[in-house]
């Protein structure tokens, strides 16, 4: 398609920065604008996921309106909302807007401040229904989960992982490689939240969250903002995007409990390009929970259905240096912080431009996939060096 990533930017990232999320957002946006060689006055499109939301606390920073107003942008097109094909759906829509001529340069951003929102209260501080007295009642889709003490995607994704383990013999030792690989790469990323070495023993012995997922299978709530600019031309081309979802849009009514919506988004990507999975040099695949990454690897055809465990076993195939498919080269959300999808796109762009520093994938990578989303959310982009 005729769209490109012309610039990227990222704020400080930390476990708890105690800074206003608007401030983080503007830092990321200004860096992206400068990186693209543009001026604020050149930005005529704005897109974000999920837009301003009060609940759950920290899940989103400013929405379109606040960023538009602070940067005093002159917009021809904008979009924000969470009914989208995953977090990167906001970027995919920006690509369409540029291709259609609705805007020339679309600034896309995603901000989280979940670390600060939790403060020292832990996860329960941001759980729906917690700390609101006995009168709170659950509405909408959460009513089917909250009465059962299942408020978190950790619970929902765990059940997909369990089914995958059951059908295909996937093991915790195999799944561990997503976390271990991320931590190895994070050690080379100065912005990563967790950089200390992690061993398989560390992984196997850490506390369970929701079986079979342990603490190190769950990403780390963080503060940070990422911005990218979509233009007609730039150093990284958007070769293809994918947004398909053919099953029921639901966490517990999806037809195949070893896949998620990413099954359809992954497969559809290859219908819009002459490239194939064998052409891909580096992949940045969502790891809000480790199992989602394994499922994306299968969905995108890097291995067969059910073969994800064997593919990542031992970590050799996905190693940054020497692997056939370097994966989550910045550390992923497991170790680099939960930037909620945009971090993967940022890293794919940095790798294709050859400016990843110590963690640069050797051999001048030319083709990358950035993918985000789990459960009923899924969207991905195939990127090539311009």
């Amino acid at each position, binding site marked *: 398609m005729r769209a490109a990533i012309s610039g990227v930017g990222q704020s400080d990232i930390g476990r708890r920065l105690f800074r206003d999320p608007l401030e983080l957002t503007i830092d990321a946006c200004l860096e992206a604008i400068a990186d693209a060689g543009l001026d604020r006055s050149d930005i005529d499109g704005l897109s974000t996921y999920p837009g301003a939301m009060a609940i759950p606390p920290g899940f989103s920073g400013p929405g379109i309106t606040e960023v538009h107003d602070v940067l005093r942008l002159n917009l021809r097109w904008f979009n924000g909302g969470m009914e989208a094909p995953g977090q990167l759906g906001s970027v995919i829509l920006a690509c369409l807007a540029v291709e259609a001529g609705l805007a020339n340069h679309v600034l896309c951003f995603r901000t989280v401040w979940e670390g600060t929102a939790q403060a020292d209260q832990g996860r329960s501080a941001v759980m729906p229904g*917690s700390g609101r007295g006995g009168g709170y009642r659950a509405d909408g889709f959460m009513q089917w989960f909250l*009465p059962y003490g299942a408020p978190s995607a950790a619970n929902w994704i765990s059940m997909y992982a369990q089914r995958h383990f*059951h059908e295909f013999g996937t093991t915790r030792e195999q799944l561990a490689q997503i976390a271990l690989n991320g931590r190895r790469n994070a050690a080379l990323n100065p912005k990563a939240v967790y950089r200390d070495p992690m061993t398989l023993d560390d992984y196997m012995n850490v506390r369970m969250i929701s079986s079979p997922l342990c603490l190190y299978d769950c990403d780390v709530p963080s503060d940070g903002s990422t911005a990218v600019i979509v233009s007609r031309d730039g150093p990284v081309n958007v070769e293809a995007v994918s947004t398909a979802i053919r099953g029921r849009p639901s966490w517990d*009514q999806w037809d195949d409990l070893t896949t998620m919506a990413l099954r359809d988004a992954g497969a559809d990507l290859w219908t819009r390009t002459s490239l194939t999975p064998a052409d891909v040099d580096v992949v940045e695949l969502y790891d809000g929970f480790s199992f989602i990454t394994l499922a994306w690897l299968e969905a995108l055809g890097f291995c067969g259905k059910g073969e994800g465990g064997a593919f990542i076993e031992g970590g050799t195939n996905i190693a940054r240096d020497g692997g056939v498919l370097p994966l989550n080269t910045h550390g992923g959300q497991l170790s680099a912080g939960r930037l909620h999808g945009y971090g993967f796109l940022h890293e794919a762009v940095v790798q294709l431009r050859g400016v990843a520093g110590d963690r640069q994938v050797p051999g001048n990578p030319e083709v990358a996939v950035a993918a985000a989303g789990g459960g009923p959310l899924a969207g991905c982009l195939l990127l090539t060096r311009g």
Partner: protein
Amino acid sequence: MTEAAQPFRVLPRLTDDNRHFWTGGADGELRVLRCQTCRYWIHPPVAVCANCLGRDLAPEVTSGRGTVATFTINHQPWYPGLDPPYVIAMVELEDQPSTRLTTNIVGCGVDDVYIGMPVRAVFEQYDDVWIPFFAPEAAT
């Protein structure tokens, strides 16, 4: 069981759309909305049947039986007053296996649950809500 002995649970807000599901337990019945035209079970309840687009819908009593499609043992203390570990599961309804309920498996040890386990609905009253849980068929 006294109310004070119950664990903390976030309860659903009862509406005309969901009351049949959350109060059927008062009569020991697991009720699910059903299309009166094509007989498709509709869950979560909505005003139009996704199978035939029919509008003539009414709650009906299911067999209350199902099969564990998948599960997880939750160890994380999400809520003060709801102590882990406990089993969260997706149960396929016997009446229509493509339709699942997310639930807890009760009446057995957390390590006794397995995929394919036959289970049956049991209910616990919390205020004006009867939460459907599932217990092993053999134990009910």
